[in-house]
């Protein structure tokens, strides 16, 4: 099929850019540890309260200024509410839902993941600056969705 010379140049340039872009995404994903939150970690949504570690939700120190935050996202809140960590703390969040699908997002950070019943989602973030970080649900979960929030205090 004949393609106009200018169109060939346009498409060649466009496709070359596309390949470079996809390679950058792929390298960042698979060799720089930037894959989106994708854990496959099954849990029975009706047995959360009896399944470790969700039988004891909360903050647990796992290293020097490193913590594991085990949280439950439910209609319409997070358990535990209001966590406090020191400045510079690295926090490994493990979150699941006993009911419907929720979101777990911290504005002005890259923390943004879906909480699906039956699965535990994981994400890690280092809080380098002090402040009160808002955690909010960004997936519609019912009539009180807009009230679903908590705060992480970094001091």
């Amino acid at each position, binding site marked *: 099929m004949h393609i106009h010379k200018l169109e060939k140049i346009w498409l060649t340039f466009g496709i070359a850019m596309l390949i470079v872009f*996809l390679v950058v995404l792929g390298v*960042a*994903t698979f060799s720089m540890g930037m894959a*989106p939150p994708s854990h496959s970690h099954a849990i029975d*949504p*009706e047995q959360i309260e009896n399944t470790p570690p969700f039988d004891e939700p909360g903050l647990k120190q796992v290293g020097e200024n490193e913590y594991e935050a085990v949280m439950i996202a439910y209609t319409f809140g997070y358990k535990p509410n209001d966590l406090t960590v020191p400045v510079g703390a690295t926090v490994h969040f493990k979150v699941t839902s006993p009911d419907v699908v929720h979101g777990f997002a911290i504005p002005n950070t890259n923390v943004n993941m879906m909480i699906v019943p039956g699965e535990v989602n994981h994400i890690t973030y280092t809080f380098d600056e002090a402040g009160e970080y808002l955690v909010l649900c960004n997936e*519609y979960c019912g009539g009180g969705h807009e009230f679903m929030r908590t705060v992480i205090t970094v001091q």
Partner: protein
Amino acid sequence: MEHPVDRRDSRLVLSHIIFAYIAMLLGGIAGLLQGLVRGGMIELPAGIGYYQLLTAHGVLMALVFTTFFIIGFLYSTAVKTLGGKLLPVARNLGWLGFIHMAFGTLLATVMILLNKATVLYTFYAPMQASPFFYVALVFIVVGSWMSGFGLFYQYKVWRREHKGKLSPLLAFMAIVTMLLWQIATIGVALEVLLQLIPWSFGWVETVNVMLSRTLFWYFGHPLVYFWLLPAYMCWYVMIPKIIGGKIFSDALARLSFILFLLFSIPVGFHHQLMEPGISPFWKYLQVVLTFMVVIPSLMTAFSLFATFEISGREKGGRGLFGWWKLLPWKDVRFFAPFVGMLVFIPAGAGGLINASNQMNAVVHNTLWVTGHFHLTVATSVALTFFGITYWLVPAMSGRTLTARMNKLGIIQTILWAIGMFFMSGSMHTVGLFGSPRRTAYTTYGDHPDAVLWMPYHVAMAIGGTILFIAVLLMIYNLFALMRTPQGYTEYPIAEVTEHAESTPPLLERWGVWISLVVVLILLAYTVPVMEMLQHDVPGSKGFVTW
């Protein structure tokens, strides 16, 4: 003057168009109220919920307005290019489809108004709507299949009677669009029929949530191309005629439609990038497939601007951009779709960001995404559909597009563009700050971050109000177009330029392309879906949380 179109055919087409616009009016009222609530300007009177309005807005705009308009428009292309009138079988299937879809729409709307289905238009399990809401969706989808079969039948008969001939470009594009729809809706049909209906009636206790989301998005992304392809039909075939030019290349136009068919389905995971239970490899694979649609998009952009430039130069345009001034800026049939095209440049760029795997974390489920699809479907596609309406309605009803209607159309387009600039612009900006989509008025306990979002939410409400005025004007225009003086209005179909080379018959070998679609879908979905089915998680019971 002789009626240009068989009345029975024009009645079918116009019924779809009018139904679509009534849905848009109702959806627009819901949208206006949402904007005012979120901007903190009003509180809803007792009994009406924000999320109820949001569900109505999404279902009526994204599912009903688009589907009805598109099917009406596609039938008109069949009338015009495949034999001059509909065959009785095609016409009957068209009406059967219309009745099913209209009934489904009414049932769904009633369920939403009764607050039995406040689950938004994505109806994510395990939120559980009334089973009749899901039944309503079945009527809409099955109705659209019937309409699709009518189109396929008309096309098949035409090809049998014109053996060895290339089909008309417009008809080919209509068939690709409908084929895309039929293959895509298989996903949502499986979700609704095998999962949600048995579960909501209580015949089974639990639902596999990840599987239901995956089936939804198998449908949800090609859905946006189902909206876009009819706009592309207008851009490729109608706009060249309106500006007095010719189609740049028949073969490339067909090739780009085939590429959209191939690469718009096996890509649903880019809506699920932040979800657990799908491995990063399969997400990335579908991201790569998603980006393949960049190629036909680049081809389309090139063809369109080549057509503009060639036709401008033939009219005497000189210099690098002299042709630009010679485009028919005062003709709404050109102006409205052209504004849509321009908006598609930032809209497409935003889409690239959304689909960028890990970068999605910055924008996922924020108002950025809402801003994005208000540029794509609610501006590029909607303005093109409006532009089509200005000639389609008079052409179908044997009336003329008067200078006054043309002027009202230009005003409507400008109002829409201004309203959308404020609304979508604020949505994009505040989305980057983290303000979530699909959320009623809240300041999150006066958290400083959320308080800073409020001015943008107010700007959204102002933009939304301007858009609502534009909706009202469009509804007025639609009915005024049916009362203009009787006469002839052209149904614009451009010819292919004599410089273009002939089209390879391979592009119309459906067996080849459908097989390739199936291979790509199996490649992208088999392993991750098997993993979801074999997962040892018990499913979820239903929840009514509104």
